[in-house]
């Protein structure tokens, strides 16, 4: 899609088709001859892994929809029938349920890779924004899919998330209630809600696929970023996508699938919650409700704020801030390989987000660091809620203070002239050599 096409139709049919619908040319230019930086590491394989995950979810989802009944009286039983009666239904459902977790695991690694190597910086801002849109669509799809089995966690997940909009009642009285009534199609989460969630859960993955197309298009115009963050300067810096990255991505997908299969066949409910095997009961909330693991950091931020509207804003803001990252980071250096201070702040940020996730899985009043005991002998001290406040502060601080200010204060390490020079010097050439010499060497090698 970028630069001049090198495709030459081989057969008469290809020549005939090429002037009518150049679809073979498109495939050749984007998947075979697409020039790719030669130094991409395994963190770059998660794009391919994510495409694989989307395919798995769509295929397993379409076949599950052949057996599922989106009706509040029958949904739970139809899922149990899939588990017990439908041929291989148990496997299809466990692939789909664990596939969602695998999808989020891969997307979090993919986003972290982008944050670390500065993949969001010019000229890749649109690529980054499209990625953020995909992430939002993924969260909406996963949330609505989790509601479909109509267990207790499904039901109260739907109740809590849709009620987030009721916080708008404190902005304009009645607005939040109007929105929640519209979302529910009634006065509570009920059959109408389940039905529309199923329709949208089926629709959204295809919208994701469409935005993925745009995401790849926006990738192929500037080309891949790479671990050095240095732009491709010449043909010496690249290799064709096939066979170099089809094989590397393929190997990564195989390794990923082995882990995926381990969950499906040996620990299919490890990432789920037992309460979701209890049919939904609108009159009784489970004693301890938690979202799926991939939403826990945001859930912890929601609970960290004592005010309802501010809590909801803190949660949505944590995702919204990702959209602004290309303009928040003021550093000219892309890769954090050459930004020691930024690297440290980033690793702390990753740890903070993981600990926020841990906080989200705990009760709000659980004690993290005990400083004493009350009369009943229970520990007192730093609660999960207060601890989450400090962590949320760092989460926001990283984006709103560290990234903007570090560009002015940080002294970056020297950045190599080209992609080729650090690759070659790392392989025993010792001293850094001029860019031209490196390019020469790689030509001979």
């Amino acid at each position, binding site marked *: 899609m970028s630069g001049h096409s090198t495709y030459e139709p081989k057969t008469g049919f290809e020549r005939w088709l090429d002037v009518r619908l150049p679809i073979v040319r498109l495939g050749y230019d984007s998947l075979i001859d697409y020039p790719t930086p030669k130094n991409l590491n395994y963190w770059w394989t998660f794009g391919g892994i994510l495409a694989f995950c989307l395919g798995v979810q769509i295929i397993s989802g379409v076949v599950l929809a052949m057996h599922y009944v989106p009706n509040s009286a029958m949904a739970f039983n139809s899922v149990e029938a899939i588990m017990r009666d439908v041929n291989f239904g148990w496997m299809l459902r466990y692939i789909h349920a664990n596939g969602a977790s695998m999808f989020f695991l891969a997307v979090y690694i993919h986003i972290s890779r982008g944050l670390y190597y500065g993949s969001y910086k010019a000229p890749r801002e649109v690529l980054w924004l499209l990625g953020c849109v995909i992430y939002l669509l993924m969260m909406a799809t996963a949330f609505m899919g989790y509601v479909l089995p109509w267990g207790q966690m499904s039901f109260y997940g739907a109740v*809590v998330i849709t009620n987030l909009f009721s916080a708008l009642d404190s902005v304009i009285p009645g607005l939040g209630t109007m929105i929640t009534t519209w979302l529910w199609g009634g*006065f509570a989460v009920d059959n109408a809600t389940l039905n529309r969630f199923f329709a949208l859960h089926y629709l959204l993955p295809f919208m994701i696929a469409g935005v993925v197309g745009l995401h790849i298009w926006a990738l192929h115009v500037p080309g891949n970023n790479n671990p050095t963050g240095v732009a491709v300067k010449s043909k010496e810096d690249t290799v064709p996508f096939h066979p170099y990255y089809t094989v590397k991505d393929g190997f990564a997908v195989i390794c990923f699938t082995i882990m995926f299969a381990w969950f499906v066949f040996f620990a299919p409910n490890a990432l789920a919650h037992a309460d979701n095997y209890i049919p939904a009961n609108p009159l009784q*909330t489970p004693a301890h409700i938690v979202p799926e693991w991939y939403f826990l950091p945001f859930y912890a931020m929601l609970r960290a704020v004592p005010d309802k509207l501010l809590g909801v804003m803190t949660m949505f803001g944590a995702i919204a801030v990702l959209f602004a990252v290309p303009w928040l980071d003021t550093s000219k250096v892309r890769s954090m390989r050459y930004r020691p201070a930024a690297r440290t702040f980033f690793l702390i940020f990753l740890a903070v987000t993981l600990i926020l996730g841990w906080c989200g899985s705990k009760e709000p009043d659980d004690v993290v660091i005990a400083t004493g005991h009350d009369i009943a002998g229970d520990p007192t001290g730093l609660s999960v809620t207060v601890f989450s406040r400090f962590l949320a502060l760092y989460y926001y601080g990283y984006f709103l203070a560290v990234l903007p200010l570090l560009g002015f204060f940080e002294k970056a390490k020297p950045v190599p002239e080209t992609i080729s020079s650090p690759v070659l010097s790392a392989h025993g050439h010792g001293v850094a050599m001029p860019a031209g010499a490196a390019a020469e060497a790689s030509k001979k090698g």
Partner: protein
Amino acid sequence: MVETANANPNVEHGHSAQPGDEGSRRDFIHIAAIATVGVGAVATVWPFIDQMNPSADTLALASVEYDLSKVLVGSTASIKWRGKPVFVRHRTPKEIAEAVADDHAPMREPAADASRHKPGKAEWLVLIGVCTHLGCVPNLGGTYGGWLCPCHGSVYDTAGRIRAGPAPLNLFLPDYEFLTPTKVKIG
């Protein structure tokens, strides 16, 4: 090249921007057409949005009747009304006294106990059993002798008033009336 691009000499004339000429008949047709399509599009979109609002049969499920004689002193019944739980609490004299004693305590949404029940029916508390934070169903308990929400720890007192936790408002009161001394109609 043959000049067939614009066969109508009047239109051609109208386009030759003369000073003071405000626009041609073609401009008018463009504006009128786009405006009509725009209004039509909005009018067509509305049914596609409004179909998600409660349907006629959902709106028709307006009221339920409940026999209070089944609810003993100190116990609570949960009734499903419009898909939501309604708590019918038969309060003990001690609970009523506590609620009245707290009438002037600092509260997020101050309300006298008398405003939380029907006149002369202080023993009967009828509330929508939905936490005003994010919609979970509170359980009996909490430090104020009323309800405790399991989701995010909101605490309500014996009159269903919010006393602690993230919820912004007291538990809502449904529309209800006493048909007989032992029967209520909710909704």
